[in-house]
């Protein structure tokens, strides 16, 4: 049941982001995208990570709903356009992954440093 709950959480967040967000941008431009974050990520975060539709044990590594959102976009275009779209997206995905690992690692180290109260 926990696995099914998580599948639902990742899929619902992914579907709403990967269909509605672009329409907000189409109508209002960059401000539409900014407001889409409030209208979509707000409730999706509340459902998935505050109420805990996606379950995490206290000592588990954290898998943010963003992973489901990213994968939904990748699969949307792969199913809709074709497998060439998948391969053509891999360089961007690899670069984003490198940046994300660095960002997560540095944030963890910054957090440790701040907790120690040092400089």
């Amino acid at each position, binding site marked *: 049941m926990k696995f099914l709950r998580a599948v639902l959480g990742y*899929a619902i967040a992914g*579907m709403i982001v990967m269909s509605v967000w672009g329409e907000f941008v189409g109508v209002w431009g*960059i401000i539409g995208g900014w407001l889409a974050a409030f209208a979509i990520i707000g409730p999706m975060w*509340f459902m998935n990570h505050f109420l805990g539709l996606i379950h*995490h044990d206290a000592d588990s590594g954290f898998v943010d709903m963003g992973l489901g959102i*990213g994968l939904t*976009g990748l699969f*949307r275009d792969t*199913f809709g356009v074709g497998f060439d779209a998948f391969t053509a997206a891999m360089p961007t995905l690899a670069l984003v992954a490198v940046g994300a690992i660095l*960002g997560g690692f540095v944030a963890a180290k910054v957090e440790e440093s701040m907790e120690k109260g040092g400089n």
Partner: protein
Amino acid sequence: MELTLMLATVAGGFLFPFLIRLLWGKLVDNFGTFGGWMAALFIVGTTWAINHGTGMITQGDGGAWIDMGFAAGIGLLTASVVRGGSFAKAVPNVIAAIVGGALGGLILSFFLF
């Protein structure tokens, strides 16, 4: 992709999980659940504006959309494991995200194309 654009894409991937990890929890501690909505607007919305609004993350030519959500998923998992979280315990949720992403993407492909 030019080297400069590649570096900007890496930096865009860095930015998002870094800001979420440092700010989101504190906003919720200070403002309760409404802090989560503030985080949605001021972290996700504002970071979206640079990564996708202005195009700091360069998309592949003819490629499927690579959302900064990937950066949140990968970066926050990295940060939580560095701080002692169990990677093995996270694997079922990673698999659930792959299944959910494939399901969600398939359903969207039924009516968006």
